[in-house]
């Protein structure tokens, strides 16, 4: 079986740059790593797994470079918002979803108040996400100000 994969790789005779684990940014859309692998690398990478060249072992990674919000919030919340920008924006726009639920837990919103909290954020979407360049610290400060 081992030889087969090698032959398959040889047969396709292709190589390509492997997607690096790019630093996660603090803004919208920066959490997506674009897949630029060749077909062979995609097939092999997916078959064989774990080739991202990442041996990180730590509490927070990638979001260390993000600006700190003015409001004092937990490191966990800063990391969560920075690491889930796209999903949180989508959830707030829809007034529901897992990222929104996680945020309300982090902000200690009581279970009974969560629907109202979601509706309030949804109604204020345009205010929270006022510009395309919005970053995680702005999102936190805008939400805290509501």
């Amino acid at each position: 079986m081992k030889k087969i994969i090698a032959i398959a790789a040889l047969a396709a005779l292709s190589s390509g740059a492997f997607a690096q684990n790019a630093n996660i940014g603090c803004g919208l859309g920066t959490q997506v790593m674009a897949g630029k692998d060749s077909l062979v690398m995609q097939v092999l990478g997916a078959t064989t797994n774990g080739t991202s060249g990442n041996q990180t072992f730590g509490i927070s990674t990638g979001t260390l470079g993000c600006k700190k919000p003015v409001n004092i919030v937990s490191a966990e919340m800063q990391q969560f918002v920075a690491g889930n920008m796209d999903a949180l924006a989508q959830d707030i726009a829809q007034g529901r979803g897992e990222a929104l639920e996680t945020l309300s837990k982090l902000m200690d919103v009581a279970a009974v108040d969560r629907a109202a909290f979601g509706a309030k954020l949804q109604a204020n979407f345009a205010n929270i996400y006022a510009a395309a360049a919005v970053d995680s610290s702005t999102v936190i400060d805008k939400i805290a100000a509501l």
Partner: protein
Amino acid sequence: MTTVLGRGHHRAALSLAWWFCFFVLPICSAGSAIGQAPTDDLWAQAQENKLAQSAAWRALLHFPKDSARSLIDDPKFFLAPNGQSDAQAELRAAIDAFSAPPNTKTPSDDAAQCRFIARYRWLLQNLPLAKTRFASADCPELQALRARLKPDSVTLVFPDGHLNSPASMFGHTLLRIDQPNAQPLLGYAVNYAALTNESNGFAFAYNGLTGKYKGYYSLLPYPEKLREYRFTEQRDIWEYRLTFTPQESERLLEHSWELRNIFSYYYFFDKNCSYKLLAMIEAVRPQLNLLSAPGVAVIPTDTIRALKEGGLIAQHVYRPSHVSVLNRMQAAQTSEELQAVQNIADLKFDKKLLSLPPETDRKRLVYDTAAEYLQYQLSHSDISLEAFRPRYLEVLTARSQLGGSSVDWKQAPPEPTTSHASHRLSLGYVSQDGANALTLRMRPAYHGLEDRPQGFLSGSAISFVDAGVRVDESKQHVRLDSLQLLQIDSLAARSTLVRPLSWRLSLGIQPRRPLVYDDRYRAVLDGGAGTTYTLGSLNTQQLMFYGLAQARVASASDKSPHLSLGMRLGAQWLPSAQWGVTLMTEAWQPLRSKEEREALVQLDLAWYAATDRALHLSIKAAPGMAGIKPEVGLRHNWFY
């Protein structure tokens, strides 16, 4: 090959260990030796209680049952120079190290009591004398980690197949440590992966197969792993919550901590992610004995099945990729609505162009689809980050004015372990022009297009080493039917918004002329690319048809290899969960004039009698080829 090279590595690891023993350890232990009390009585008690032989101690050191060697190659993981091959020596060294007070003035995680926290804690619990004799240590970093993660439960995470890469069907597995009542998005992933930045496909495959890469465990926020699998690779994810208690979850965290920056040589097909995660689970539940069960650890779905049978899985959760949600949303929309989705995603907000549906719930769906579509496009590099940001924001702003929705687009398809097992055995009877033969086939892995599709990514198939023999009824002659070394089909359906390429590849030995069994064979490598469409819902995929342009290299023993070009057209109809009809037709035009043109038609009617049993009626013909008669066969497949 693996074994030979594997030994080579062990030898290298051993010589490193010697170096460690002579030069590094004396320096470290010099300080502690002074105040160290003799540990002979502790050692005697450990021997009396047979601790070194216990399953728990061996599991903590990653010794599979009955194995004389640990799976961990890094000498740093052991306190004794020969700890990798001697669990008893390691126990003795651990007792000595834990009895000595940390030799650093300020609290440091380098103290043996911190670095080997799981071993330390286990001995405290299982060696009565240890309670009064082991020294304690503060472990500031570990404390911080524990405080942040608040381990309460553990979930096994399985990213399913990748839309355009059937090979990914084997999948990946990782563990997630969750907080009490917490959201998965606040969890931390424990992942085992090979460390490499190799960009050459061939070198990557060779090195990976022969254990040239070092594998490391990593710990990172779960959303980062989600990003990798759900966004970048667009793979659905299945999460299986394990029946770990909060205490066991903490043990898992501590054991991960012990494995920080510790390497093992990574072997893609045996000592892979799945196998190494089992070692972690076994370190917490040593009575499981999963590592020594043959075959269980290699393919993730088999691993999950074994964990289920062992009573380790409490419940599962499905987390669809963007492309899965997008496909479902698309299927619920009219072509005008999908046109509006595309216009919105392209920021063509002109009222006339837009032609949004008047109903609010339809409008919501259009905007929600556009948001998913933009994320899909970004992940595919179809649009740039600069183009994505304003569009995404514009779409979400418009969406936020339309209120809530209760439609669920995340309903789970059949769970992966409801699929047939990986090994296939097939017994059949074929008849061709009045001559009959028995056929016997075996295939160790994994899934064919004609097999029961439940639990697999539709249109995706991969087979490794599918070999068959046939026994002629009249002549009592046994001959090779065919030997398919590798066969991959990736028939990914196109839709308005998602347009993947379909492709296939196969390599094997088959009769020189199709359906002619005269002991003359050829080696064939062929492949193709094209398009697949489906009718009916994309998830149940009732009718699928595809067309591929193909190329082939064939080589027989007495001829030089020759090239052919061809076409493959096929269809699959799945009228119910019990029935499947698969049709394949192909034609080949050789580029060398003296070779024969070929055509082949195969029709397969399958009755999926049970999860692991199926009956197939198949008809094969080579229309237009001189002297080749059609063949009709009936066969029974078992999966185990």
